[in-house]
C-alpha cells in the first residue's frame, strides 16, 4: 500500500529524517515509534505531501505522490497532531467544510458525515460548536474529519495527545473498528503501550533514523531476555553474589533495581524452578515474586541505551 524509500529531510543544519525506509501492506497497522524529535511528524508530513523531501520517494500503490493536486491524495486521510478544526463552527459545519475539500457535497457528504460522526460517537453533538467540546471530543472529531472521504490509508500523528484515558480508549476502539474494515493505518506515537495495543508491526525511530522495524514478537526477540523474574528478597541490604547467579546457564541477565532482584530467563516454565532452587540452597529467602514480560520501553532502552521518555 505504502512504500517509503530512503527519505531524507534537513532544516538548515538539522537532519530531521535520515534515510528512512519502510513499507506498509494493505490492511496493516504500522506503529511509528520514537521520542519527540525522532522525525515521526516530518515523515508523516512527507508522506501526506505537505513537506517535500530532500531525497527519497513515497510510493502509494507503486505510484509516487505528485503535485499538490494529485488525486492520489484522496486515498490518504490525515489526522494531524495539532487539532485542525474551526472552534467557532459546529461539528457539522466542520465536517461539511472538510468534506467539500474532497469534492463531497449534498447527500454523499451528509452520508459520509453521519457515518464518521457515528463511528466516533459524536452524533448527538453535531450542532454544537467545537469550542464547547472537551479535548477528547475534539480529538475524536479530528479523526472523523479525516474519514469523510473514505481514505484507504490513514496517517495518525499522535492522535491521543492530551486526552483523558476514557477518550483515549474510545479512540483506540475507533481505530480497531477501522482496522477491522480493512483500512491501512500508520500510527505515530511515543506511548509504547498504545503501539503494543494497536500495531501489527513497529518501526522505531531515533534521531531521524529507523533503528528497528519488526513485529512486536520480533522486537522482543532482540532483547537478551524474554521474561523477567522480579524477586523481593529478605535482608535486601545484604551483599548479593550477582556474578554467581549470572554464571547459571538458565540466567540471561541479573541486576538489582529498586531493591528487587531482576533475573532474565529465556523459558519461564523451565528456568524458573532452577533459579528458585539456587536461591533456596544459598539461604536467600524472598517475600514476593512476580514475572514480567519486557515491554517496548525495554526494547527502546535496549536499542538506544536511553529511556523513551527521557529522550
Amino acid at each position, binding site marked *: 500500500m505504502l512504500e517509503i524509500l530512503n527519505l531524507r529531510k534537513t532544516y538548515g543544519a538539522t537532519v530531521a529524517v535520515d534515510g528512512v525506509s519502510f513499507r506498509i501492506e494493505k490492511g496493516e497497522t504500522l506503529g511509528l515509534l520514537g521520542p519527540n524529535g525522532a522525525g515521526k511528524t516530518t515523515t508523516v508530513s512527507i508522506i501526506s505531501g505537505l513537506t517535500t523531501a530532500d531525497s527519497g520517494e513515497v510510493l502509494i500503490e507503486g505510484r509516487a505522490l505528485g503535485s*499538490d493536486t494529485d488525486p492520489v491524495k484522496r486515498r490518504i486521510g*490525515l489526522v*494531524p497532531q495539532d487539532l485542525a478544526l*474551526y472552534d467557532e*463552527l459546529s461539528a457539522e459545519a466542520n465536517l461539511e467544510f*472538510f468534506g467539500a475539500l474532497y469534492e463531497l457535497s449534498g447527500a454523499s457528504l451528509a452520508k459520509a458525515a453521519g457515518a464518521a460522526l457515528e463511528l466516533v460517537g459524536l452524533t448527538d453533538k453535531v450542532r454544537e460548536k467545537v469550542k464547547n467540546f472537551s479535548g477528547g471530543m475534539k480529538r475524536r472529531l479530528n479523526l472523523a474529519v479525516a474519514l469523510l472521504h473514505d481514505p484507504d490509508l490513514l496517517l495518525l500523528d499522535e492522535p491521543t495527545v492530551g486526552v483523558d484515558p476514557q477518550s483515549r480508549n474510545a479512540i483506540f476502539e475507533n481505530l480497531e473498528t477501522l482496522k477491522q474494515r480493512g483500512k491501512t493505518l500508520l500510527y505515530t506515537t511515543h506511548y509504547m503501550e498504545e503501539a503494543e495495543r494497536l500495531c501489527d508491526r513497529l518501526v522505531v525511530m531515533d534521531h531521524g533514523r529507523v533503528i528497528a522495524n519488526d513485529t512486536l514478537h520480533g522486537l522482543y526477540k532482540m532483547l537478551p531476555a524474554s521474561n523477567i523474574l522480579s524477586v523481593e528478597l529478605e535482608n535486601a541490604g545484604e551483599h548479593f553474589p550477582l556474578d554467581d547467579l549470572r554464571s547459571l546457564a538458565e540466567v540471561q541477565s541479573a541486576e538489582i533495581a529498586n531493591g528487587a532482584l531482576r533475573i532474565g530467563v529465556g523459558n519461564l516454565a523451565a528456568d524458573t524452578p532452577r533459579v528458585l532452587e539456587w536461591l533456596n540452597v544459598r539461604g536467600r529467602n524472598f517475600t514476593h515474586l512476580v514475572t514480567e514480560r519486557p515491554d517496548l520501553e525495554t526494547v527502546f532502552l535496549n536499542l538506544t541505551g536511553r529511556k523513551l521518555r527521557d529522550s
Partner: protein
Amino acid sequence: MITPLRALVRKDIRLFFTDRRAVIMGFIAPIAIASFFGFIFGNNSDSGSNSPLAVLYVDQDAGTISNAILADLQKQKPLSVKVSTVDAAREAVRKGSATVAIVVPKNFGTEAGRAFFGPEKKPEIEVLYDPSHTAEQSMVQGMLSGSVMEVVSREMFGGQTGQTLVKQSLDELDGNSSATLRNLLESVKQWNDSQGGGSVLRRGITMPYTVNPEAVTARTGTPYNGYAHSFAGMSVQFILFMGVEVGIGMLLQRERGLWKRLRAAPLSRSLLLGSRALSAAITSMMILLVVFGFARVVFHVRIEGSVAGFLGICVAFSLMTASFGLLIAGLGKTAEATRGLAILATLMLVMLGGAWVPAFLFPKWLQTLTMFIPTRWAMDGLDAMTWRGLGLSAALQPIGLLLLSSAIFTGLAISRFRWEPEG
C-alpha cells in the same frame, strides 16, 4: 474545484460573521464614526446647526464709533459677540471658551477719525485669539475691518464727531500741509454743511461688491453632503483593519496547523490563497455596500456620479484590501509580532490616503507622495463618484491604480508566504 472553492470562501465568511468583534469593527464602527465626523465636520448646508463663533468685545473707548462697531458686529450671523473686560477676555481665550477677543482702545473714535483723513498715527485694535483657531481669527479680522471702515466713514461724513474732527483738522493745518488734503477736508466740511449739520450718511464706505458663494458639486442646486467623504474615509479605514485581521488570521491558522490540514487535501496552494483573498474581497464589498447603504438612507449620501464607476472602485478597493491581508500574512512571522506593525502600516495608509483629512490640505510634497498610496486613489475615486458627481471616466484611473497595487501586493505575498510556522 468549484465545490472546494465555494466551501473555503463560505467558511471564511461564516467565521467572520460568528466573530462579534469583527462584525462590530466591520459594520458598526465605520457607520458610527463616519456619522460623528460627518456631523461635526460635514458643513452640511441643510443642518443649520453650525454654532456661531464666540467673540468678546472690550470697549475701552465707549464712544459713538466703538458702540456703532459693536452694534454692527452683533448683527453678523456667524458671530456671537459679547461685551467683556480685558482681563476676562484674555482668560476666556486662554481657556478656549472664546475664540477671539477684540480690544478697542481708549480714544479710538477720535484717533481713527483723524487717521481717516490725515497722516496721524493709526490707533491699534488688539485682537486676542486662540492659536488653534487661526482661520477663525482671520475671518473675525476681516469682518472687523469692514465694520470699522463703514462706521468710521459714516461718522466722518456727517456725524457729530466727524464734523468736529474735520473742523479741528482744518484749523491745525499749517502752510506746509498738502493743498490736496486741505481741499479734501474743505470739501468734506462743505458736504457736512450742505447736509444741514444734522444729517448723517445712512451708510458709510462699504465694499463695492457682494459675494455669491456657490459650492460646485455634482449638479447645480445639489448641496455638498459632508457625510459622503466621512463615510468613504471610515469605510476605507475599517475595511483595511479587516484586511489586517485576514492576514493575522492566516498567521494564527498557520500556527495552529490548519493550513497544513488544508494542504493535505488535493488542492493547489493558489486555490487556498486565492479563496482567502476572494472571501476577504467579498466581505469588503459587503461592508462598503452596507455602510454606503446606511449613509444613503440616513444621511442622503447619493452616488451623484457613475454607479458603475462607484461599484468598480468598490471592487478594486476590495481586491486591494484582500491582497493587503495576504501581504501581511506573507511578511509576518507570528501573529503576535505582526499585529502592531500591521495596524501602524494601516493607519499610515489611511492617514496619507486622506481618509481623516482631505489630501488637498497636505503640503505639496506630501500630496505628491500620496500619489503612491493606494488608499488615496480609493478616497479620490469614492469622492469623485459620490459628492463630486463625476462620470465613469474619472473612476478608471483610481480603479487601474488600485488593481495595480493589488497585483503588486499579491505577487509579494505569494513569493513570501510560508506554509509552515518558522522553526
